[in-house]
């Protein structure tokens, strides 16, 4: 019974981690411009993240080490430096985008420009980390995050042609705007397969004191939770395709267009629901990425870490999230367009994937860490596939970034 509660909480939690400004923005853009045709990218990204999250959780539950620990310990400092720097940079951009997402929602709600909200948002996020415990953050944010289900409800209420939705789950070549099509596919994949998500998940397993008895829980959470998150993303995409595109809005390059998605369905409540979804999803993600920055550094250098400790018990760890949160607020304060930043950082995330995924292949097959709970053929094949995908994404991101982005 306790495990059942654990699983349902975990599923809700992973939604909090999965759905953030990146997946919302990329799904909305893709739906408006390409209808249902990019659903496959969400599906593919979700499948990949299910495997990675399951492995990250299993690694942590069995070895009591996080993925970051594993990379440093197994590959040595010199090799570790690359994923560390890449992850720090990507996380910084993603965190900035998330702070931007909350700031936009506050602008939508109040009419006061988003730049003015960046610092208060960072401050509030920092306060949560400073005073909160891991469980509080994990559960609080994720239960509030259930509001994002309004996209799924909205999608169902619009009565889409489900056959067309299913057809969209099969990859197809674009009929127009090829570069833009692929760029969006890359961004969606980047938004779904976020390194911060699986790295954070493995730290969370340690924070929640998982052991081998949690392997089943882990599998359930990874599978169901990520599917749940992916479903909401598909919901956003369907709503965008059926509302924005049918109103002639085939290009989403201004975040002011986003609330229009839900208004025809829910009226004024649609505006409120959108604003709340954006605020909560992004705020949760900002906190998690902030925490992940601290996990990365502390685990990479072997410091004492833990969100449940008081800041004075792990000063190095607390200093890292404090500094990173406020640094991440700067681009938004300077007025950098949060939507552009989001799309940019999602594409960069995709490009950085090989650095963080390649280690999975070795770590999850290392008996000293995972004992008899190592990867089977299917998991190893999945990792190899994701690595290959990651390399392709890394190679195509830059040209697409220049020519296909908005």
């Amino acid at each position, binding site marked *: 019974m306790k495990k059942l509660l654990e699983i349902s909480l975990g599923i809700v939690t992973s939604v909090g981690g999965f759905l953030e400004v990146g997946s919302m923005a990329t799904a909305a853009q893709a739906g408006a411009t390409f209808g249902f045709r990019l659903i496959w990218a969400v599906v593919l990204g979700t499948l990949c993240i299910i495997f990675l999250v399951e492995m990250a959780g299993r690694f942590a539950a069995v070895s009591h080490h996080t993925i970051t620990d594993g990379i440093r310990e197994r590959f040595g400092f010199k090799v570790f430096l690359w994923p560390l720097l890449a992850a720090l940079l990507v996380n910084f951009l993603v965190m900035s985008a998330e702070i931007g997402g909350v700031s936009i929602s506050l*602008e*939508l709600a*109040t*009419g006061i420009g988003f730049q003015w909200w960046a610092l208060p948002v960072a401050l509030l996020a920092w306060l949560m980390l400073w005073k909160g415990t891991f469980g509080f953050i994990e559960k609080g944010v994720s239960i509030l995050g259930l509001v994002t289900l309004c996209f799924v409800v909205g999608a169902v209420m619009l009565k889409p042609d489900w056959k067309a939705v299913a057809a969209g789950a099969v990859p197809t*070549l*674009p009929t*127009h*705007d*090829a*570069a*833009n099509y*692929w760029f969006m596919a890359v961004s969606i994949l980047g938004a779904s397969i976020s390194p911060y998500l699986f790295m954070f998940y493995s730290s969370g397993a340690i924070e929640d004191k998982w052991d081998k008895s949690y392997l089943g829980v882990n599998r359930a959470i990874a599978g169901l939770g990520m599917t749940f998150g992916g479903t909401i993303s598909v919901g956003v995409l369907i709503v965008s395709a059926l509302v924005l595109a049918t*109103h*002639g*809005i*085939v*290009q989403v*390059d*201004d975040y*002011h*267009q986003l*609330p*229009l998605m839900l*208004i*025809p369905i829910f*009226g*004024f409540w*649609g*505006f409120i629901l959108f604003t709340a979804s954006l605020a909560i999803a992004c705020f949760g993600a900002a906190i998690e990425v902030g925490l992940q920055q601290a996990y990365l550094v502390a685990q990479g250098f072997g410091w004492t870490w833990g969100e449940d400790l008081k800041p004075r018990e792990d000063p190095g760890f607390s200093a890292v999230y404090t500094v990173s949160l406020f640094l991440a607020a700067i681009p938004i304060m300077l007025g*950098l*367009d949060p939507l*552009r930043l989001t*799309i*940019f950082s999602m594409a960069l995330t995709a490009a950085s994937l090989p650095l963080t995924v390649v280690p999975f292949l070795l770590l999850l097959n290392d008996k000293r860490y995972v004992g008899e709970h190592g990867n089977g053929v299917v998991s190893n094949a999945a990792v190899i596939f994701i690595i290959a995908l990651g*390399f*392709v994404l890394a*190679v*195509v991101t830059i*040209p697409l*970034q*220049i*020519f*296909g*982005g*908005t």
Partner: protein
Amino acid sequence: MLFFGVGSLPVWRIRRPPIDVKGQSAGLGRTWLLLTLAISTACSASDQIDQQSRTAASAAQTVAMALDVWAAGEAPSAYTLRTLQSVGKTLADVQSQIRSAGSAEPAEQAALAAAVGQMSDAVVRAEAGLQAGRRSEVQGADEDVRAAARSLAAAYARYFAPKS
């Protein structure tokens, strides 16, 4: 999108798939090169005009939809005003991009720019009406935006019509 060129650089897109699908088996490096080459050669003035026109059309629809939901009391005025301001900026940008593009059909190009200009003007009127709380003015501007969108569509069709 170029990160540091936010808003200031022209955004180019191509209409036709630039990737030779068979080329993908030619090895990653070559595909990359092909992709880059194909994309960069596909950037022409008419592609730019095409892209800008579609941005303008989307922007006009955004304004129309935003004003509709505002009129129905389904969106707050502050949000609607911000949307108008932001779209207004986009339209001004689009207009100057279309004007500065070198094109083989100056008359059609001018017609496109003029349509976008009409849109901009209508958006400014809608802003003013919204700020003053004059519903009839907003409604009039809304109709003007729609009319401008129609003339943009017509100009677009003429620009890209097959020439004899």
